[in-house]
């Protein structure tokens, strides 16, 4: 009986998760006058006009590419620097290790509003403004600590004997790390990449501040498209739905790996 009840609860919660998204989808398929005129649970006269308006703006797909570019760079960069560090934290003790670990975490806590100006000026000084690299680097601030943290958990689950065996077999550290150790924690790397992708994809404040034209993220392009047309709920919703799509696609493609990764991980 309890099994039954818990599934009902889960169903209700998933309904709560999906309803607001569904509602935005519903709005995006209707004209503004239609939305304000009558309340419909299902769009009676669905239209794709809102999407057509957005898609006809030439800057929107470059927004997609920009977002994907900096998110991709960030994920790779975060993993590249976090992997050796996580190994160090999981295998060795060294002077200041705990403090370093804590300091890394504290970087998630900086209130962004005040740090925007120094960020902008720092990246201007290095001529990075309006590049994908700038946003990718800035997002490392909160993604690298998280990546180290998650990876450290996975690595601690791998017995040390593997390291020692490889050492006895004459493997040098870099070769051991790439050919033996990495495949062992494949699932952990996948989960970490997913979280890096996620936090970089959804962040807008830094991404918008550090870009002007050539690296503008999709979410910023969308909102600009909309604000030019005034408060058109249908258009706003269509823009919103389009920004959700890539994320939804990513989850769909990694769903099995995510399940496997989460199942194996001692996150």
């Amino acid at each position, binding site marked *: 009986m309890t099994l039954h009840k818990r599934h009902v609860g889960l169903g209700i919660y998933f309904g709560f*998760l999906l*309803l607001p998204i569904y509602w935005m989808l519903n709005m995006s398929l209707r004209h503004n006058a239609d939305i304000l005129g009558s309340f419909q649970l299902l769009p009676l006269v669905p239209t794709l006009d809102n999407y057509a308006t957005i898609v006809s703006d030439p800057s929107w797909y470059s927004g997609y590419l920009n977002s994907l570019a900096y998110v991709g760079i960030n994920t790779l960069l975060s993993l590249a620097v976090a992997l050796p560090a996580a190994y*160090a934290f999981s295998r060795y003790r060294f002077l200041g290790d705990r403090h370093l670990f804590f300091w890394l975490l504290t970087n998630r806590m900086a209130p962004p509003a005040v740090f925007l100006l120094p960020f902008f000026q720092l990246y201007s000084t290095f001529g990075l403004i309006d590049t994908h690299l700038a946003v990718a680097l800035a997002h*490392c601030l909160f993604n690298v600590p998280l990546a180290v943290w998650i990876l450290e958990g996975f690595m601690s689950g791998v017995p040390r004997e593997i390291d020692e065996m490889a050492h006895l077999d004459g493997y040098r550290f870099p070769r051991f790390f790439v050919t033996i150790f990495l495949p062992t924690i494949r699932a952990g790397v996948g989960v970490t990449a997913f979280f890096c992708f*996620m936090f970089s994809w959804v962040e807008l404040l830094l991404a918008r501040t550090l870009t002007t034209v050539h690296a503008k993220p999709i979410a910023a392009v969308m909102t600009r498209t909309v604000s030019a047309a005034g408060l058109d709920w249908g258009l706003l919703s269509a823009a919103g739905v389009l*920004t959700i799509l890539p994320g939804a696609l990513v989850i769909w493609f990694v769903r099995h790996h995510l399940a496997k990764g989460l199942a194996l991980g001692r*996150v």
Partner: protein
Amino acid sequence: MKRTENPRAWWLVLPVLAVVAFSALIPLMTVVNYSVQDIFGPGQRVFVGAEWFREILHDERLHSAFARQLGFTASVLSIELPLGVAIALAMPTRGAGVSACLVILALPLLIPWNVVGTIWQIFGRADIGLGGAFVHALGIDYNYAQNPADAWLTLLVMDVWHWTSLVALLAYAGLRAIPEAYYQAAQIDGAGAFGVFHHIQLPRLRGVLTIALLLRLMDSFVIYTEPFVLTGGGPGNATTFLSQYLARMAVGQFDLGPAAAFSLIYFLVILALCFVFFTVLTAGEER
């Protein structure tokens, strides 16, 4: 697991240090510099010592923004953590259902934060939103744009909607990592569902729940984009959390000095909070 002493491990940590320090230390130092000066424009600044700190610490608006922030963060944590664990416990453990559940769960996490605000802006409106209309149909005069309590509640529900999934995913990962043998042992001992939860699942979830708690604590303390879109900090100041207040000072009025002093105080408070949690929660582990 026993870790061996190895000072050369520093070399492995160096890349992380370089990348993070570049983006963390220089802006932080700049903010400290701002906080002791009155800045009029490029190159025009006067050293004022601790004046901004004194002013900010005696500022009533800061106190109320801080109280609102604490209230919000405490509410968010006390709902999201238990709810997330409950969802993780209710999730299927094998079969096709797992992937489907994970996809639905992860969906809110992958929506850009300003769009999360937009979704709830639409959903909560009494005239065109399903949620708002539903509450209205129950006979409650609900309006998040005018009624402070409604605005606050809407933000709370939005945050729960947005972030409980993160807790649930982490908790689910933790639960899956518990070896089957533990459950079998519990079965032999004749433990009930609660006994299993209390003695096996909860202790083994300690690590992931530490991560979840700290992440939610840190992120909810700097919440900015979603309330900015949904309520703009209003009505009045009902949903003006610390970041809103800061942004208004730093960007709106260009009061860099006071805003910097404020954010440093704020940073110290959350640093202390996190240190206490981090220490308490990792105290049992091997050091």
